[in-house]
């Protein structure tokens, strides 16, 4: 097995009396794409927020590249190379593509006066986006002129450019058309080829997960109930698991009908 990028050991998280996660252990290897599936309220967002350093786990351990770590904050996690791509993408609509690519990590022509080096940022952004096969009319257009898929792709490319080692994608294909989704999935595939990045994708769309992920984990009621390589399982098998959960839940509410 290849090298480990990120691992959690028996993570639990409670908010007051509500337990969002119980005993969650996941393992993510370098260069691997892990799909995290689960219904609304299963604990996906809580798990992601723990991995980005936003929440602290109530109990359990996190290992990054084999070392046990305590994620103090989002910026601490990012400094290690754990880069979240938020659903709002943190892009600035009124600003062009290449400046967005370098936002907060701007290249400067003059350090003292903080003058931006537009030429260099433009060139590097163009090069990097081309390498990632992100298809946009030009790096000079404002983000507001781009489609949802193009924006998502730029946000992903930006994180990769920022030397992400673990990329956390929250619903990257949500509310996107077929072409748009295909473009994102293509970018994620390229990640595996060009950069040694590990990716966790939180998604609802099973087909998309099976398309790009090496492995799937299913989160049900705050627990990981399924962990298998996508090659060794099928969409049907997963759907059955989810439906089974539904039936069980129904039987708990109406035991006599069981």
């Amino acid at each position, binding site marked *: 097995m290849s090298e480990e990028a990120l691992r959690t050991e028996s993570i639990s998280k409670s908010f007051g009396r509500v337990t969002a996660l119980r005993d969650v252990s996941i393992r993510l290897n370098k260069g691997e794409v892990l799909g995290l599936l689960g219904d609304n309220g299963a604990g996906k967002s809580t798990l992601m927020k723990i991995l980005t350093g936003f929440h602290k786990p109530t109990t359990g351990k996190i290992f990054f590249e084999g070392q046990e770590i305590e994620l103090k904050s*989002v*910026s601490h996690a*990012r400094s290690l190379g754990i880069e979240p791509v*938020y659903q*709002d*993408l*943190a*892009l*600035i*609509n*009124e*600003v*062009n593509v290449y*400046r967005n690519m370098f*936002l*907060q990590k*701007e290249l*400067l022509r003059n350090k003292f*006066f*903080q*003058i*931006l080096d*537009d*030429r260099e940022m*433009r060139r590097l952004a163009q090069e990097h986006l*081309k390498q990632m*096969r992100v*298809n946009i*009319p*030009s790096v*000079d*257009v*404002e983000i507001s*002129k*781009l*489609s949802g898929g193009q924006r998502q792709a730029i946000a992903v490319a930006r994180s990769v450019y920022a030397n992400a080692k673990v990329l956390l994608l929250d619903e990257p294909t949500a509310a996107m058309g077929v072409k748009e989704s295909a473009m994102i999935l293509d970018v994620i595939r390229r990640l595996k080829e060009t950069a040694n990045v590990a990716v966790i994708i939180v998604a609802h769309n099973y087909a998309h997960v099976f398309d790009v992920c090496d492995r799937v984990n299913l989160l049900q009621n705050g627990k990981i109930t399924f962990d298998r390589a996508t090659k060794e399982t099928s969409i049907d098998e997963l759907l059955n698991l989810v439906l089974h959960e539904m039936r069980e839940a129904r039987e708990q509410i109406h035991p006599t009908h069981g």
Partner: protein
Amino acid sequence: MPTEPPKSAPESQATPKRPNRLGVLGRSLLHSREASILIAGILLVIYFQSTAPAFLSWSNIANLVVFAATIAIIAAGEVMVIITGEFDLSVGMVYALAPFVMYDAHAAGVPYVLAIVLGLAAGAVVGLINGLITVRLGIPSFITTLGTLFMINGFTLTISGGFPVQPEADPLIFAIFGGPLGGFPVSQFLWAIAITALFQFILVKTRWGLHTVATGGNLLGAAEVGIKIARIKIGNFMICSLLGAFAGILDCFRISSADPLAGGTDYMFRATASAVIGGTLLTGGSGTVIGAFLGAVVLGILSDGFTLSGVSAYTFDMILGGAILVTMIINVRLSKLRAAGGGK
């Protein structure tokens, strides 16, 4: 993969298509929202010159410059604040306050150069207070600066006793800070040009400017990538108040007098109108300092031109209000056309 052929080039007012060291100013003038206001200004000059031949006389141009320069300097700061998604109502009161701080400091034995610095510092402190209350305590800036507006006005009236004062400084200081030269407000004009150029440059070419746009354009996103949004907002409040103070000091030397009732909400609204007419969006995330400068010039042309044409001051405000609305309606139409025509 080959890049697509460029589609019809979309507008990008914040950055030129190809980074060009010298073409920035000219390009943003020709390529974007500033163009329409420039054309409006030229048309107005032609109109007023044809109705009142004295319009382009030197003495009248001097009048116009005095008005436009003061408002343009205040508007430059207001644009920076508006881009971050905030608003500063108090800047006109800082305009009145700063000369008195300067005057009193000098009366207490401080040399004039230092007294000017103290006057400017008083402005910066007001900006800091506006920023801290807005950002740290989460009070909408409209309310924060409404409060400080009254407080500063009361403070200025208190320290002045409600009476104007006459500064007596070295002629050189008068000459540098707004004093007329051969009957023409040369230095004030140059200050307005320099400040407009400086802040347009800061806005379009520096990290501070980019982060200012980012903060106003997507507050949450800017914070997520690690931009210190609190610092950006507070800093721009300070810039705005500082420029308000500077405009007040310039005017004080120009007319050799500081009036505690000068400036106020009238100047603040004119500066805001200049910013808006020039193409700055009140919703934040987008704005132009050059546009605000041109907006101030157009306001100056309107008020001066109507005065020369014999329109009464009462009627003038009606016309001014109408002009602002018409300009804005045209602007909104034009930007819709641009959005439809330019790029995807």
